[in-house]
């Protein structure tokens, strides 16, 4: 039984010469691959020009990203400085107005009790 199976398998997997059609197709395919810029494994090889372009594009993209981040940080810092300056302006006006108010109160109180205060405008 096992011998019969073995002989069948041998018959099935016996070396067979390829047909002429297959050989011609294979030769034609190899010739076409050699003419085309792609290698035998089908992976496209980049030309030096394309590689340089890719490198330039990558560097430009990196620079753009770096510039964008830098600008974002700069804008954020400027915004913080601007808001701080705004806060200081409001504080400055508050202090100034407080002291103007003090002067005004003294001047106003002159009319009620002239002996207490000595304004001069």
């Amino acid at each position, binding site marked *: 039984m096992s011998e019969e199976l073995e002989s069948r398998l041998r018959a099935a997997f016996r070396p067979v010469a390829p047909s002429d059609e297959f050989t011609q197709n294979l030769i034609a395919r190899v010739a076409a691959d050699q003419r085309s810029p792609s290698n035998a494994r089908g992976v496209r090889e980049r030309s030096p020009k394309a590689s340089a372009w890719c490198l330039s594009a990558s560097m430009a993209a990196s620079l753009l990203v770096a510039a964008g981040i830098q600008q974002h940080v700069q804008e954020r810092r*400027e*915004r913080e*400085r*601007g*808001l701080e*300056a*705004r806060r*200081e*302006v*409001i*504080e*400055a*006006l*508050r*202090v*100034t*107005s*407080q*002291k*103007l*108010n*003090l*002067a*005004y*109160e*003294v*001047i106003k*109180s002159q009319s009620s*009790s002239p002996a*207490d*205060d*000595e*304004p*001069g*405008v």
Partner: protein
Amino acid sequence: MRNCSLRIFFALLAPVFVWAAPSPRLVLPEFSALAQKATESVTITLDAALLAMAGRFMNGNDPQDAATREILKGLQGIYIRSYTFDKDAAYQQADIDAVRNQLSAPGWNRLVETRSRKSQANVDIYIMVANNQATGLALIASEPRQFTIVNIVGSIDLDKLHKLEGQFGVPKLDIDVKAPAPNNKK
């Protein structure tokens, strides 16, 4: 050749004339010793660039911000030193005199001088006028536990300050800014 020599001569002299022109900006001391003693201190130094930057961050739709931006338009600097102490006589009058002496320079006119015996609050307001326009304002307010020096540089319109009335507590002073007394009432 002679014209060229004259031009060079005047070009060399120009910085001297600029230096000699009275500046509305006061030289404010650091007051570092007082700042250490003070319970509260306010130090504000805003030059033209910072004022412009602050103006850009004012909200035009907000009335207070809009009024503030109007005031800032003509200003070139705001400098404030204010110190509050927890006891009387914590500072010497000499501390203020260094600033007050600068206000005896030509160009400065004392606009308001108030002395209150009751509250012992003294407020002096000086203004520098050039071409009928206020180019600088100095305010020195001294109280027993507080003193404040305000120096505003630039074209100051007190009418615009009046617009802030009720917002920062600015009172109506009824002061004619455009015609101050020519002499220095020091």
